[in-house]
């Protein structure tokens, strides 16, 4: 759940086994609270990008960035100011839809939130929704009345706005 204290950190890391464990270990050991981590390939071979959301005051975030920088497999770390980023999360949610009335109601909601129905069965709908974490929270609150059978959220991923990028020297 995103709060006003939630901060976003982006890191470029070596894309190899053990790196995620190493970073997660450091967070656990030093008592930093991770809300979500997303990891994926980058445009450069051998490098992965990690987006971490966590809560804490400025001093804690400064320590997190410094401690991450100390890790050999972490190549670059940036604190992303929330005002200057494009941030998205994806959720897949399976809701109960036993009759045509609830089904069409639910689909209306999906349209309002610009989600998509990606799978349908006689008893359920599976919906894909993308957006800020707040938007997803709001959508899920609506879906609760139908009955959420299963939910998978990716956690936040983010880029800074404008031409600025986290560059890694070759």
């Amino acid at each position, binding site marked *: 759940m995103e709060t006003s204290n939630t901060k976003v950190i982006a890191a470029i*890391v*070596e894309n190899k086994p*053990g790196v995620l*464990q*190493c970073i997660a*270990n*450091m967070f656990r*050991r030093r008592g930093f609270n991770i809300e979500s981590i997303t990891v994926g390939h980058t445009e450069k071979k051998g490098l992965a990008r990690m987006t971490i959301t966590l809560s804490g005051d400025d*001093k804690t975030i*400064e*320590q997190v960035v*410094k*401690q991450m*920088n*100390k*890790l*050999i*497999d*972490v*190549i*670059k770390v940036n604190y992303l100011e929330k005002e200057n980023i494009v941030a998205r999360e994806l959720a897949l949610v399976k809701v109960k839809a036993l009759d045509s009335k609830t089904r069409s109601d639910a689909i209306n909601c999906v349209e309002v939130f610009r989600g998509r129905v990606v799978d349908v069965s006689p008893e359920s709908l599976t919906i894909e929704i993308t957006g800020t974490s707040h938007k997803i929270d709001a959508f899920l609150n609506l879906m609760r009345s139908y009955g959420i059978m299963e939910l998978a959220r990716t956690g936040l991923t983010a880029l800074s706005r404008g031409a600025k990028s986290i560059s*890694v020297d070759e």
Partner: protein
Amino acid sequence: MTEMSGAKALIKSLEKQKVDVIFGILGGAVLPIYDHFLNSEIRHILCRHEQGAAHAAEGYARASGKPGVCLATSGPGATNLVTGIANAYMDSAPIIALTGQVPTTSANTTYMIGRDSFQEADIVGITSPITKYNFQLKTAAEIPETVKNAFYIATTGRPGPVLIDIPKNLQTEIAEMDFSDKIGIKGYKPRSKPHPLQIKKAVKLLMKAEKPVILSGGGVIISNAANELLKTAEALIAPVATSFMGKGSFPENHPLSIGCIGMHGNPVANKLLCEADVVLAVGTRFSDRATGTLDTFCSSAKKIHIDIDAAEIGKNIEVDIPIVADAKKTLREINNRILKQGKNREDTPWKIRVKETKQQLNQPPNKNDKSLNPKSLLFELRKILPNDTIVTTEVGQNQMWSALYFNALKPRTFISSGGLGTMGFGFPAAIGAKVACPNKPVVDIAGDGSFRMTEQELATSVTEDIPVIVIVLNNSVLGMVAQWQRLFFKKRYSAIKLGNSPDFVKLAEAYGAQGLRAESLKEFSEAVKKALKSDVTTVIDIPISSEEDVTPMVPPGCGINAQVGKY
């Protein structure tokens, strides 16, 4: 490019790093490596427990400034190294731990990684939070580059332990090996030069200071900056307190030396640090044992903090002028700038204050007191030992008494387990230090509890001909915890009695070492002199009172200015 086996490439890579000694214990998963030792000039010292091997590697590293290497087999061999690796991590010592691992693949058997094979342990996972970096090899061809990177990472920036896990099949695998010297690690670019603007600000603040104090930490020793520190202190007429890890970075017989700070710190250091208007902290991390509660620690002072590890800045203490750089380079810049201003300050009221406080609070032992008390013993020991003697300590009362009463005069001559507080560290570390510096006497100041934790290394010291001296301050209890039970648990003693077992003289003799007992200050002095002449390890057993406390002391939850008890 040359073709050879992984084991041969490993030995060759170590030789390229100028490794002359390895502390280790062999086992099934490192047999191919041990076979190649027979073709190498590298001396292998067979320890009696892997923990001893790791501590010896650290003792070697801290006495010499060169990386120490230890080696163990897979599974229990590797896990037995863990305490030693954690110790090196906390005290920023460059050690390389090599471990065997079960094979990555096997034909026709399941003796391989991931199958819970015989003597398999995930040592890379286990040591990830206690190493600066660790590697598990996937192919034999990686060996030269990995070893080179491991030494580079361990010895540069803030030093620390690096582990290389080597599956057994890679040791025999033949591959093309590339021994080039080029280093390229994307995520590791240690910074060492100070920012000129920060230097300017720091010197300005220091020159204005009326009551400056320098707090010198282990980083000063690591970066070989003791000479620069001495110049800074004399130019500023600033008294020098050290952290426990910084003991030896400044000669403790110097008029400006005010001793170690902390829970059992020198009362002069604790007092003057709290009076300072500017504190120059160099290579120190403000550990809880050093600072006490933070609200009173140097509360009236502006703080300059020099450390090579950016993450130490602002971690425990807020500072006014941070400088992320090497201690030696930074102090040199500071000194140059002070000299340029051409103001070697005259006698200041602060200098007089330092002198008076020392006279008032640092009384030498009472000459009429003939009892065998630690203070008299350690003052006497300093008189007997040559200045370049390397002293290690165990952990507990023996360690704190040594910090208080045994003056370290040179860097790398006082080696103790500061951060982790590992009982059993001192003796194997002494063996490692002696291997690094065979011409200097090496003395482990021990307690009976600590010494027993790694005493089996007596066999190593005797059979490998590494003579050291162990001084057992034998109070028949686990003294430091006994002291806490006495002071904070209403004398409800629980599980602290060690009794009179073993007889340390007979124990030493059983190992082929020399055992001596001293029951008076005179006997102690004679025993140490005899031990210094001995070419075999000597254990000196000194029965002392089990009621003896380490004082002064900062009670837990108090500031260092609230120290109680007499020096």
